[in-house]
């Protein structure tokens, strides 16, 4: 019985995967027509990678870090410096010229992405030594500080010849096609899921649940915290690199604290401790902002101008929606659960008596 259910689920997953590939193929074929939709989807997928990497740290290891933007910046600049075509570099570094050491340094984008991940992991390993001695809010503040330091260093005029300082970098080659962009994002998320479900993932969860008990199980606190921090930063760096390829031109303002808040929003909205929650959250938040553009345009009904509809109003609506979601789903859309076909089936069947179920789960939460 059970085996049958598993193969049925595999079939569903396969159909869903083919469906997604089909849609991607359709978008790719008509990429000129759907460029707006494609750009939203790509940004969502990249944010999903970073959100899952943040969730790996916050949701699964219990380390609340706010350094995402900093590690994304390291990844993005690494990819940019390594992939900008050598012949156009003179026009990119038009202010102070380019440092001779990196003038002819160029490699394919996949290698650049791996190096981006490794470089930000290395920085994370160094930062982690002092910072991971701190707990909860203090860790968040310290990582936030480091993130801003990284940004300040990148935009420093002394580094003009490497990072082009505050002028930013442009002419980064784009993704060859949609499948590469989505494939890379999917691969990163898959690797993180495999890690979370491995023996090391269990050790991370043990750390989150009870540090003293985890030590009593022979897990070295510092070693495992550092490991989680480095791995998470690796994928954050890759995510930053993907963002650079997606945006094609970057500057240090892109990686301000607001970017970290966006990612944090996605993680909290999707559910702390749920990978699928983060992915769903990434698409909802990124796409939601665009769908609500409707509110930015002046609206006239029956000759009367509705006064609130003007530029910026969508962010008000967006914030109200966010508050509503947080009020009704206190633990995020997915809580700490993962998506499953059985869960979806249950959800669909339970819609008629949803109110009953809700009172039950609330009781369960209190217990």
């Amino acid at each position, binding site marked *: 019985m059970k085996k049958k259910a598993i193969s049925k689920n595999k079939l569903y997953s396969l159909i869903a995967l083919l469906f997604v590939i089909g849609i991607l193929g359709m978008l790719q074929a008509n990429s000129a027509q759907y460029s707006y939709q494609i750009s939203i989807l790509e940004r969502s997928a990249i944010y999903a990678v970073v959100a899952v990497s943040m969730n790996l740290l916050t949701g699964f290891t219990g380390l609340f870090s706010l350094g995402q933007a900093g590690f994304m910046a390291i990844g993005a600049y690494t990819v940019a410096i390594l992939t900008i075509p050598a012949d156009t570099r003179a026009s990119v570094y038009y202010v102070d010229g380019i440092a001779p050491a990196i003038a002819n340094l160029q490699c394919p984008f996949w290698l650049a992405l791996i190096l981006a991940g490794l470089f930000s992991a290395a920085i994370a390993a160094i930062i982690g030594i002092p910072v991971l001695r701190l707990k909860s809010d203090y860790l968040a503040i310290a990582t936030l500080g480091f993130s801003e330091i990284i940004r300040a260093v990148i935009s420093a005029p002394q580094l003009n010849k490497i990072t082009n300082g505050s002028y930013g970098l442009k002419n980064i080659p784009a993704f060859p096609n949609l499948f590469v962009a989505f494939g890379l994002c999917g691969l990163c998320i898959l*690797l993180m899921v*495999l*890690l979370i479900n*491995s*023996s*090391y993932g*269990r*050790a991370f*969860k*043990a750390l989150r*649940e*009870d540090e*003293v*008990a*985890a*030590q*009593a*199980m*022979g*897990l*070295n*606190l510092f070693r495992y915290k550092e*490991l989680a921090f480095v*791995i998470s930063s690796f994928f954050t760096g890759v995510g930053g690199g993907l963002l650079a390829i997606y945006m094609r031109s970057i500057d240090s303002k892109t990686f301000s604290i607001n970017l970290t808040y966006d990612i944090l929003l996605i993680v909290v909205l999707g559910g702390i401790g749920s990978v699928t929650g983060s992915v769903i959250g990434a698409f909802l938040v990124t796409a939601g902002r665009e769908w609500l553009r409707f509110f930015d345009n002046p609206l006239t009904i029956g000759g009367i101008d509705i006064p609130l509809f003007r530029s910026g109003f969508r962010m008000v609506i967006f914030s109200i929606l966010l508050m509503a979601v947080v009020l009704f789903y206190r633990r995020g859309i997915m809580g*700490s659960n993962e998506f499953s076909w059985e869960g979806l089936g249950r959800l669909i069947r339970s819609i008629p008596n949803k109110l009953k179920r809700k009172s039950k789960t609330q009781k369960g939460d209190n217990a």
Partner: protein
Amino acid sequence: MSAEAKTPINVLHMEDVTMQFGGVVAVNGLSLDVNEGEIVALIGPNGAGKTTAFNCVTGIYEPTFGKVDFMGETILSNTPKGKAEKTYLGEVTPRPIPVIRNTPDKITQKGVARTFQNIRLFGQLTVFDNVLIAKHMRAKQNVLSATLRFNHKEEERMRSEAMALLEEQNLLHLKDEIAASLPYGLQRRLEIARALATEPKLLLLDEPAAGMNPQETQELTDFIKQIRDTYHLTVFMIEHHMDLVMQISDRIYVLDFGKLIAQGTPEEIQNNERVIEAYLGVSDDAED
């Protein structure tokens, strides 16, 4: 049930262990020995420093002074130095001892497992995962091989060992339950099972019978003897239930205000005037 007649192997040896928090001396010059295969109890009124003594053995605290040997190897030793010396209230022995520190995880790896007074399970994880985590440290693998599933055999071994352990402890039918949702008695049992999963030589039990009724306490008594024999363990425990302590212990140490006031067999302890005094002086209920 008594200690072996031939020269017993010393499992745990504590020498002059002192733990001082500011001006409070929680444990004062505690020296004791636990030999292989024994069940030894550490008793004393509330606040006598029993749990602090345990924390000094498992490395959660670094003793202010004294040393702890496990299987003949010094795992912790300290001597008051510098600033600590000025505030140190005890007597400094003239012979200098080297400072040896070990983090709790290293001590667990050497073969000391423990349970906690207020249960510390991985609450939101399943019963099975709780035991599986204890198997992690002895598995031969690294992050990369575990992520890419090259450690397939090792993972299988961990799982089958954890399953076998759960079966032996009669917890197998609960393996997919969330640990925090188990009733209290089963949580205690799971915590012991999890400690056994680290493959210890010495098991430290911190009030295993706390909150149990007489019948459950009797079951626990048999259970402790049974795991001692099945897993060839040495058991060192803190307990308040005198029925349990008197029935099961080979030897008893009595702690009061951080100092050892008596030691001996259960009969000797029952008739020791200082012990009776210490208990009556603090509380009129010897079982609490």
